[in-house]
C-alpha cells in the first residue's frame, strides 16, 4: 500500500493584480483585479514505503506547493491525496505524529535558547517517552556529529550546524515520512555532504520514506533512485534518474580524436561544442549518431572515438525550459 497517493492534485491561487503608480493604488482600494494562477495542475503519483524520491523542477514549478498539500498545510483546489492513510489537510493528530517537514529556508527551532531546549519542547508536544527520546537524541547527535553543540545558543551556530539541528528536531519523533524542501540550500559542499550522509544513513537504519526537493543535482544523485520532474505545475516525468536522459535527451555527445588534425568541414556533421588539439566534441542528434560516425570514419582517419550522453544537468535544464518529454513515459 502506497505511503503517499496523489490523484489529480490541483492548486489554483487567486492573486491580486496591482496597478502602477499612486493612482493605481487608489483605484485598487475600491476595485481590484484578480488573476487565477495555477501552481499545480492535475498531479498524480504514488510512493511506496521506504522509497527515496526527488522532486525536480525549476523555481515556481509547483514542487513546494505539492509538498505543502501533502503535509496538510494548504488545501488543494481539486484532486485528492492520501498520506500515511490520512487525508493530509484534515490534519489529524495521528497523521501529524508520523511525518516531518524540513525546509532549508525556514527555521523551526526556537531562538535564541539552545537547540536542546527546543528538543525538550518537541518531546512534550509529541508526548515522547523520556527513554525513547534520550535514545533517539543520542543516536541523531552521534550520526550528525553535533554532540557538543546542542547546548549552544542556536543563533551562535553556523548555517550547516543549524540545519543539522533542524534535522534532529525533525527526526526526534521517528517519523515514517520525511518531506524535505531544499534541505541543503545555502550550505557549503562539506555541510551538504554531511547532510546527505546523515539522510542516507538514517534511511538505511530506519527505512524512512523521503520525498525531497533540491536544486542541487548532487543531493538527488546521492540520495534518490526515483525522480518526479514537475514543470509549470505539471508532472512530466516519473522514473529513475538515469532514465531522464533517455526520455528527454535528444542528442548525444560524440568525441573524436583525429589522426591528422580537425578537418575544416567537421561542423557539417553536428554542432561543435569543444575543440582542443586534434579532439573535437560534436553534439549529434541521437537518431543520426550511427550515420554521422560512419560518414566521418569513411572520410577521415580517426584515432579515438567515444559516444556519451550530455551532462545530466544540461538535459534537466532543457526539460525545465521546454517542460515536455520527447516521447511518452514508459
Amino acid at each position: 500500500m502506497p505511503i503517499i497517493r496523489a490523484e489529480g492534485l490541483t492548486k489554483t491561487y487567486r492573486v491580486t493584480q496591482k496597478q502602477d503608480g499612486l493612482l493605481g493604488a487608489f483605484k485598487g482600494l475600491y476595485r481590484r483585479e484578480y488573476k487565477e494562477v495555477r501552481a499545480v495542475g492535475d498531479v498524480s503519483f504514488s510512493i511506496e514505503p521506504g522509497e527515496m524520491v526527488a522532486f525536480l523542477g525549476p523555481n515556481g514549478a509547483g514542487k513546494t506547493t505539492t509538498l505543502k498539500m501533502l503535509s496538510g498545510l494548504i488545501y488543494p483546489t481539486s484532486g485528492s491525496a492520501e498520506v500515511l492513510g490520512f487525508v493530509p489537510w484534515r490534519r489529524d493528530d495521528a497523521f501529524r505524529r508520523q511525518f516531518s517537514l524540513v525546509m532549508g529556508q525556514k527555521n523551526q527551532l526556537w531562538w535564541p535558547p539552545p537547540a536542546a531546549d527546543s528538543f525538550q519542547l518537541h518531546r512534550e508536544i509529541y508526548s515522547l517517552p523520556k527513554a525513547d527520546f534520550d535514545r533517539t537524541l543520542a543516536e541523531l547527535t552521534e550520526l550528525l556529529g553535533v554532540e557538543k553543540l546542542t547546548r549552544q545558543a542556536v543563533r551562535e551556530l553556523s548555517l550547516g550546524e543549524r540545519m543539522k539541528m533542524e534535522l534532529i528536531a525533525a527526526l526526534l519523533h521517528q517519523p515514517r515520512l520525511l518531506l524535505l524542501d531544499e534541505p541543503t540550500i545555502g550550505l557549503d559542499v562539506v555541510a551538504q555532504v554531511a547532510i546527505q550522509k546523515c539522510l542516507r544513513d538514517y534511511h538505511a537504519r530506519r527505512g524512512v520514506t523521503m520525498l525531497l526537493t533540491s536544486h542541487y543535482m548532487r543531493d538527488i544523485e546521492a540520495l534518490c533512485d526515483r525522480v518526479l520532474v514537475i514543470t509549470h505545475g505539471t508532472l512530466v516525468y516519473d522514473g529513475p534518474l538515469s532514465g531522464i536522459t533517455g526520455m528527454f535527451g535528444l542528442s548525444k555527445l560524440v568525441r573524436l580524436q583525429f589522426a591528422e588534425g580537425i578537418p575544416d568541414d567537421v561542423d557539417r556533421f553536428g554542432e561543435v561544442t569543444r575543440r582542443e588539439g586534434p579532439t573535437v566534441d560534436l553534439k549529434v542528434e541521437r537518431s543520426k549518431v550511427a550515420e554521422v560516425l560512419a560518414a566521418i570514419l569513411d572520410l577521415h582517419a580517426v584515432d579515438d572515438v567515444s559516444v556519451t550522453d550530455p551532462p545530466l544537468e544540461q538535459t534537466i535544464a532543457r526539460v525545465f525550459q521546454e517542460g515536455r518529454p520527447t516521447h511518452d513515459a514508459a
Partner: protein
Amino acid sequence: MRILAKYLRLLGSLARFTLAREMAFRGNFLVKVSVEVIWLGIMLAFYETIFGRTKVLAGWRKDEFLFFVGCFFALNGLIEMLFLENCNDFAELVRTGDLDFLLIRPIDEQFLITCRRVDWATAPNVLMGAAVMGIALARMHWQFDPVRVMAFLATFACGTAIAYSFMLVLTAFSVWMVRNQSLMEMWWLFSSLARYPKEIFLGSRAEPLGFLFTFILPILLVANVPANAMVRTLNPPMVGFTLFATAILLWASRKFFQHALRSYRSASS
C-alpha cells in the same frame, strides 16, 4: 481529563521555555515591567483625582471602584501575558510562512498559536491587579462570602475568555489581510471600553451603546460582572448570561479561526 492534563503540562513547558528566552533579553524585560508599573500608577492617580472631588462615580463608591480598577488590571494583564503577543505575532507568521511549523504539530493549532509564548514582562500586572483588589477589599472591610468568591472567580475566568475570543477573531483576519497592524489598535479600543463601569453609559444617546456592548458585543461584561459580583450586587441572571455569552463566543471564535486557517496560503520559501 488526560487531554486537559497534557495541555496544562504543555502550557507549563512553554511558560518555562519562554521564561528562559525572556531572560536572554533582560533589558527589554525590565523596560516592559517599568512601563506597566507607570501605567498602573497613572490609572491610580486618575482614580484619586476623581474621587478627591466626588464620593460616588456612576454609582460606584471609592473602594468599590478601586476594586474594579484592580480587577481590570489583573484581567488585562492575564490576557496580555498569555495571548496578546502571540496573537500579535500571528500576522508575521502568516506573512513569512513560519506558521507552517505550528500547523504540522500534532496538537491543537489554536492552542499552539495563541499560547505558545508567555509574555513574562506583563506577569507582574496580574499580581499588581490582585494587590490592588486586596487593598480595596481591606479598605471596605469586606466580609468573606464563598458564593461571591466563586461567582467572582467564574466570571473573572469568563471575562478572560470573552476577551480572548474577541482577540482570536481579530487575529484570524490576519490570514486574509496578512498585514494586520490594526490588531493592537483594536485591542486598545477593546480594553478602553472594558476598563470603565457600564453605568457610565447614561442618557438616551449612550444607553444604546451600553446595551450594544453588554448584550451584542459583550465587552462590558469582561470586568464589570466579576467586580460587581465581588463588591457590589451579585446579580445571578447577569452571571448566567455571562456564562452563556462566554460559551457562545468561545465556540464562534474557534469556528471562525478554523475557517480562517483553511484560507492559509503558506508563503513560499
